[in-house]
């Protein structure tokens, strides 16, 4: 019973890690760098989601555009993903493109700094007060023989898996996806064959940020307290998931995101919760000791999968 309940808890938590980890993973496979600002793009996505949702609710209340809640939610997700993808492209243009030929360490530091700028920028813009994410979905709790599921949890898990699957299909089946895969194979030679590196890089950032925005909105629905630093810890954990999945692997990042959720939820079920992170991240470390390239990563950095 407790096992099944925790399975559901873990699926929800894993959804966030998976969606954010995808962004880390994609950027790495194209540009061979980790975008450490990604956790904060997730935060920006949640705030944009908050803004869009609040705006739409106001419009709807005023009677200008009467919309049911599910429509507001769908529009919020779509608009926020769209808007946040521009934030991602902006970050790439300003922070990463000028440093593309700089040492890797400089580019990694750029990410950290952009992250701090996004956090403090938000602090200046909106103040330190936490925001309460509007409840777009009226919570309905279902009791299935002692296992409690809410409609929110079902929605979050289903949409997250759907988005990850859509990304996978995009990369497998479209011309742009093929260009991304080619770039992941060799980002020095492939541009010489006419694949526009700048466009592909911008698109990768846009896709990753859009997924982060979706994660941000789902986060706002599940944990409706937003603050400017919410992306830091979540971003780091998702980064762990990206490494665990194998750098540059979409399937790997998704599965590892869920795995991390499972570890974090199931550890306190067995051990005292005081040592939760100690045990959870020891397990992660142990996995990496035996599989240093993650689950789906390969030893050859030039043969990254996407």
């Amino acid at each position, binding site marked *: 019973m407790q096992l099944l309940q925790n399975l559901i808890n873990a699926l929800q938590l894993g959804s966030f890690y998976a969606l954010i980890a995808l962004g880390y993973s994609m950027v790495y496979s194209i540009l061979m760098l980790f975008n450490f600002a990604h956790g904060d793009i997730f935060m920006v996505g949640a705030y944009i989601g908050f803004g869009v949702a609040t705006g739409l609710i106001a419009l709807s209340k005023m009677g200008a555009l009467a919309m049911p809640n599910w429509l507001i939610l769908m529009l919020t997700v779509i608009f926020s993903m769209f808007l946040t993808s521009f934030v991602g492209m902006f970050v790439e243009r300003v922070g990463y493109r000028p440093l593309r030929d700089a040492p890797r360490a400089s580019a990694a530091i750029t990410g950290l700094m952009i992250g701090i700028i996004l956090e403090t920028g938000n602090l200046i813009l909106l103040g*330190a007060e936490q925001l309460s994410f509007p409840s777009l979905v009226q919570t309905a*709790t279902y009791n299935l023989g002692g296992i409690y599921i809410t409609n929110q949890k079902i929605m979050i898990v289903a949409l997250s898996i759907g988005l990850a699957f859509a990304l996978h299909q995009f990369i497998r089946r479209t011309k742009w996806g093929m260009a991304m895969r080619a770039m992941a194979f060799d980002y020095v030679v492939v541009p010489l064959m006419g694949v526009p590196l700048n466009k592909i890089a911008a698109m990768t950032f846009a896709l990753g940020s859009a997924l982060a925005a979706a994660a941000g909105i789902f986060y706002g629905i599940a*944990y409706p307290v937003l603050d400017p630093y919410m992306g830091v810890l979540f971003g780091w954990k998702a980064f762990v998931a990206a490494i665990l999945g194998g750098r540059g692997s979409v399937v790997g990042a998704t599965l590892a995101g869920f795995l991390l959720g499972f570890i974090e939820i199931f550890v*306190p079920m067995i051990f*005292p919760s*005081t040592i*939760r992170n100690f045990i959870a991240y020891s397990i992660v470390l142990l996995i990496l000791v035996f599989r240093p390239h993650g689950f789906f990563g390969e030893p050859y950095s030039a043969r990254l999968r996407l």
Partner: protein
Amino acid sequence: MKKGFVSVVIFSCITMFVAFYACGPSGPETIKIGVNAPLTGDIPKVGEGTKFAAEMWLEDINAAGGIQVGDKKYKVELVIEDNESKAESAVKANTKLITEDEVLAIIGPQSSKQAVPAGGKANELETPMISPWSTNPNTTKDRPFVFRGCFLDPFQGPVVANFVKDEFGFTKAAVLYDVASDYPKGLAENFKDAWEKIGTMAAYESFTTKDTDFSSQLTKIRDSGAEFIFTPQYYNEVALIVQQAHQLGWDKPIVGSDSWGSAETVKLCGKDCYGLFFSTHYAAAGATGATKEFIDRYKAKHGYVPDDVGALTWDAMRIVQTAIQNVGELSGDIKKDRKAVRDALAKIKKFEGITGNMDFTEEGDPVKCAVIVRISDTGEFEFYKSVCP
């Protein structure tokens, strides 16, 4: 090179001499009071309440032309530092206030996580400090320069335990707390000690600061057979814990402590928190006299009813004011004056505050009553019961 160095040394000696001489004998014209508050970070509302209350106090002082010490009136200046709700920043803020701004006394930090380490720094640098809100015993323990304006957790723990026992007659308790923060950790232990005398602990679960998912711990608590949850957390976590508990099918009471008493709790938590109880320092609804006057003034100015942090800060400011007035004469030597203010603080035996009457013990801790508040069905903090030592 050498010549240059020597002349620099001589020049700086002269400057220092002149500077000291110029302000030495005449004494300071203004008194500086430091405020160490969490303006940003996890609990910015607490910082805001601190700042607003301190500024209201300053308005009163300025209206009266300053603080009367002996036969001289001193202007007062507030130096407000942000501790970002972090322990290390609170220590840094205290060091800056003491060494750079040369404040006479410090108000804050508020939560024990910052007040315990920052109190150590204030004591080491011999500057009187009053934490209005920190209920952890370690804040003032063996620190002659550190005081507080509220009751202690060893008192609050049993207050909550006995209240639940009397009110509901429960025997099985569960606790969920942040193991990485001084205040929840200390209070969780105090509660456990008190509860184990009258009932059993069904679950004792923890998490670490910044966690937002408590589903695993709450599932464990739900299946442990506990009859209520005690969670001594700050308002941002209270909202998440209560909502997630309800989503996991928990329909029994959740009880809190004074950290719930923020204007933000209900805003973030919504209907999920209606009907819950917590122990605190004062209840705004139904207040009378000076307390009501303070609440009305604050509300008129800032648009919301002040939470207990605001009220306690107000009391702490007035305690410092009383102590400074009792000193009788300021010498102008900041070290000597700080010592004098500390001695005057230690001598205050009875103080009528807006959060109740206080008697101070040898440790610099007040003895005062606690209040049990119920969050009403409209989201207001209603006075439910008063518990005195």
